[in-house]
């Protein structure tokens, strides 16, 4: 297993590089249509892949994970704020765990 120190350096360096290099080097917009489209879809694919199926297994029982997922999707669907959605998911998980565990 790589050392903790190097892991932190790699994460910080890669993250900062992604933010800084375009800002320092490019002052013109990207023209390539495939590249701009690809970059446009990346965040949604990433966030979904990280959430599903992991959220179901992040809790003590899959039932509470599913409850958190459903409540979060519903709240987000009706346009609630980031904080409300996150707290709503946590509240649903807490409630189901109290009832079932």
């Amino acid at each position: 297993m790589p050392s903790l120190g190097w892991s932190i350096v790699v994460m910080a360096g890669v993250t900062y590089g992604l933010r800084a290099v375009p800002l320092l080097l490019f002052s013109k917009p990207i023209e390539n249509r495939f590249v701009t489209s690809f970059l446009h879809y990346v965040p949604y694919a990433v966030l979904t892949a990280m959430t599903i199926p992991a959220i179901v297994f992040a809790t003590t029982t899959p039932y509470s994970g599913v409850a958190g997922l459903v409540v979060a999707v519903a709240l987000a669907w009706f346009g609630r704020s980031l904080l409300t959605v996150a707290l709503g998911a946590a509240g649903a998980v807490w409630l189901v765990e109290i009832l079932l565990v």
Partner: protein
Amino acid sequence: MMVRGEAASGVRDSVPIALGYFTVALAFGLYAAKGQVPVWAAGLISTTNLSSSGQFAGIVVMLASGSLVQLGLTVAVVNLRYVLMALSLSQRLEPGVRWWQRALVAYGITDEIFALAMGRRRVPVSYFLGLVPLPVLGWTGGTVAGAMVGEFLPPTWQAAFGVLLYGMFIAIVIPAARADRSVAAVAVGAAALSIALATMPFSAGLQPGWRIIIVTVVVSGVAAWLAPLPRKDA
């Protein structure tokens, strides 16, 4: 005087972000502590990365004892959207910005700070840099608090805090999916492929970092091919 005014309004605008970050970072700190990552390291990761999904994916790889290459690649793919944000921000910064100012601005690019800054047609550097300190404080403070007190919480509370980050991700994806059918298709496709890879016998042993990379590249690539953005989109 102008500079001070812009910076101050940046600080004011960032208060809700800082509070939200503190809450969500509790979950990251808790997750790191559960994986035996020391408190100082969790805090340092948060201060230097300032990216919820990127460092979360990174720590998943770290805890699975992935290689440094896998770690770097995973963080790069998950944070690839910052390239897009940095590019569009570089179009909107006020004229005459020095390179070291750009280097400072780069550190503060997150989904939420970027979204706030985009509320201005021309983004003054002092306003942008005013947006940054409180969220950094909230993010780091939440991480440290979560890592320190997390393990003393009852399991039901740990489980509840553990889904905060996922809730935040869902809050970003769902409204965009509702507004745009292509984004909705991306979300459904990514969920399906992710479940498939995580459960199929031949791929269930795949490390989470690689699974996230594969899903992202395949689904975004197919979407960009089938549903490219209209020409003028920035």
